[in-house]
């Protein structure tokens, strides 16, 4: 097992290095720079700006500087937000994104799995159809549509929650958590249902039944563990993408998370911030994938032995 994890970590590190290297150089190919402007400024100031952010150095040297910074956990200064370093910006935004992401994934997993199990057990019943329809809607309607609709209903018409911002504690983020969870609830419930139905047909479940073990026990002890394998496989990357913040959610609900930086930084050619966010996203994604693999290996001995 330890060897298995070690190998995965090593591969993950290589992937991350490749991702970051590629991003660094591809980003520089985009036209425009962090200090493109429509006014001429004094050459002295121009030179100082370039020197301050090391833009005057050859690109390989800038890359070396970046790598050296990463090794020291220093992602450098942001070119757009002059009062903050990239470390500051991530440290300030990540807790918000993590909080929303944590609750969203928790709600999605609990509700999704519950809906999936019930759907599998009472297949083609009315409730199954209703859940199925809701599921399709949850996946099909994009966040930027469902978010504003919920804002109008729950914030404007009913006045239960604020429209946006994070100024009233957790009450501020009920809607974003719901909206973020919704497509995942849909996906997880469908996944659970399908996989549950398949597992219920497996020989080992039938064997257990034949041995006279009661319905509930078969369900919990034998079926669930097998049925949740694909769900766990989905949850890993989903968690990584959810907890690092959703650009759309954070924009629609005006939340101070780290997700919004992802697009903004690229548009503003804030090179250090783009690199910082890429590293964060890439790192978390890889880490959660590894975590998922480990969890699945633990749940399914066949996978473990195959490695």
């Amino acid at each position: 097992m330890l060897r298995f994890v070690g190998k995965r970590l090593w591969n993950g590190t290589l992937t991350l290095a490749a991702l970051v290297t590629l991003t660094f150089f591809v980003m520089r190919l985009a036209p425009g720079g962090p200090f493109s402007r429509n006014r001429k400024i004094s050459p002295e100031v121009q030179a100082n700006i370039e020197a301050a952010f090391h833009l005057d150095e050859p690109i390989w040297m800038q890359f070396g500087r970046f790598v050296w910074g990463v090794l020291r956990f220093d992602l450098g200064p942001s070119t757009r937000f002059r009062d903050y370093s990239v470390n500051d910006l991530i440290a300030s935004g990540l807790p918000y994104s993590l909080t929303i992401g944590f609750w969203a994934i928790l709600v999605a997993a609990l509700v999704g799995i519950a809906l999936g199990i019930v759907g599998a057990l009472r297949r083609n019943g009315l409730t199954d159809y209703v859940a199925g329809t809701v599921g399709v809607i949850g996946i099909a309607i994009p966040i930027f549509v469902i978010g504003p609709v919920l804002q109008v209903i729950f914030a404007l018409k009913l006045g239960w929650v604020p429209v946006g911002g994070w100024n009233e504690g957790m009450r501020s983020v009920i809607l974003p958590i719901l909206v973020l969870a919704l497509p995942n609830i849909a996906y997880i419930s469908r996944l659970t249902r399908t996989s549950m139905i398949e597992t219920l047909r497996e020989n080992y479940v039938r064997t257990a039944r034949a041995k006279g073990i009661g319905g509930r026990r078969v369900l919990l002890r034998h079926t669930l563990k097998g049925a949740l394998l694909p769900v766990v496989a989905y949850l890993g990357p989903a968690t990584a993408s959810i907890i690092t913040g959703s650009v759309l959610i954070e924009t629609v609900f005006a939340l101070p998370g780290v997700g919004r930086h992802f697009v903004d930084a690229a548009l503003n050619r804030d090179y250090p911030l783009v690199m910082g966010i890429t590293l964060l996203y890439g790192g978390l994604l890889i880490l959660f994938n590894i975590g998922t693999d480990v969890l699945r290996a633990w749940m399914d001995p066949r996978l473990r032995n195959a490695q």
Partner: protein
Amino acid sequence: MKMKGLGLLLASAALAVGLGTAAMADDTLDRGMGSEWSTLDPQVVFDGATGWILMDAYEGLVNFGPGGGIIPGAAESWEASEDGKTYTFHLREGLKWSNGDPLVAQDYVNTVFRTLDPATISEKGYYFYSTVKIKGAEAIANGETTDIATLGVTAPDDRTVVIEMETPGPHILYLMGAFQMSPLHKPSLEANGPAGFGDPAKVVSNGAYVIKEVVPQSHILLEKNPNYWDAANVSIPFVKYYVTEDVSTEFKRFQAGELDVTYDIPVNQIEVVKETIPDQVFISPSTEVTFYSFNLQVPALQDINVRTALAYAINREVLQEKIVKAGAVPSYAFAGGFDPDYQGPQMPGADLTQAEREAKAKELMAAAGYGPDNPLKLTIVTTVAEDRVRLAQGVALMWKQVLGVQAEVKPMERKAWLDEFYAGGWDVFADGLIGDFAGPETFLAYMRPSTDPGYHWVKPEYDAAMDVAATKPDKESRDAELAKAEKILLDDFLFAPIAIEAARSLVSTKVKGWEPSGAGYYNSQFLKLE
């Protein structure tokens, strides 16, 4: 069972709602500010909405009153020398910083010096050596000297600031009130570095408000400054500026009462709000102009007849009222329309009807050798913003319908668009300029070939006219000379004027004293909450 799961979720949501009813404070003015501040360093800040925060937190030598007129600020009076080159400001007695330190004239001198000093890496130095030509400013900006004694801004005593310029500059007062002239508390800077300006625990300011709380991507909270000289007349105890990047979310937050003043109005809602809440809609011309520049490096566009035809074929009223519909004002000029005192010229043909202009445009195009068999092909480079693309498509359509010109619209991200201008890979550039203040001066100065070589425009007469204007110490004769320069500019059709963009805000009926401001400043200290 499934429904139960959902029901449980809703119930817990309702519970949380019940528990978390935080009191909405009525003593706070909630203002939208659009994008996040780039920095709170007053000598570096360049973005307009952050300027509002600084205008609340700092006070220049003069101030902008309700409606944007110039009123006394930290200086209770000032006078200009006969030749208009020297301005002397007299500070009020007993001025204090928010921490109680005495505020002295040297604090203003230090601001100008720090803005110019290349080590500050500020892009605003040109205010002091180009917008107005303060003695010694350019040498400091170019790194030729670091000696503050060479600067034409001095403090002969603690209550006097003297500014000496190389040429008369009556418009200097606009700069003395703007946030560019926020005084500098040097001990704080020396102790905390520039990051201290954004740290509520460390920042020291002199305005009607002090910075109380800073949450990146979320908001900045200001609290009334008891040490402000006019604190007795500051009515609102707290002002909160919210980052409101998404304009439709901002609109809903306003509807829900979370915001008292918005940064913008969604373009698709303008008609609706004008109908439903007309008393809360504030749309007024800003100091931003839109114009379509022609590339003089492109042979076809070197012919002034072609440029004239293109400028004539644009139906500016239809463009704004039927196509873009964002509240901008159709414009036939460049530097006029903001400052009611300035009687500037309009482009040739502005007195004709649109039908007459179009007929003339067809003639000119035909004379230049273009027609159905030989259509002119152009690219229009614009930014990707939705209303900008729509504008460009509208212009392209008009050129096609009237002149048979095949214009291709190329939207670009803002940063790429900025670089594309100097790269010159465009025929027509969807151009724009935001004036530093509501007068013709900055617009016209910007078009001097020496200021912006990107236009490849060579016109010694224009520079000469601007040089003459620069010698005039009083606004009236100066404006008359500036108008002559603007006429040279417009006559040459270096660009087709399009519109004056609008400042759009929704202002709650709770807020009293909000007036459209030509200067673009709406200081919270003059507002009241009911």
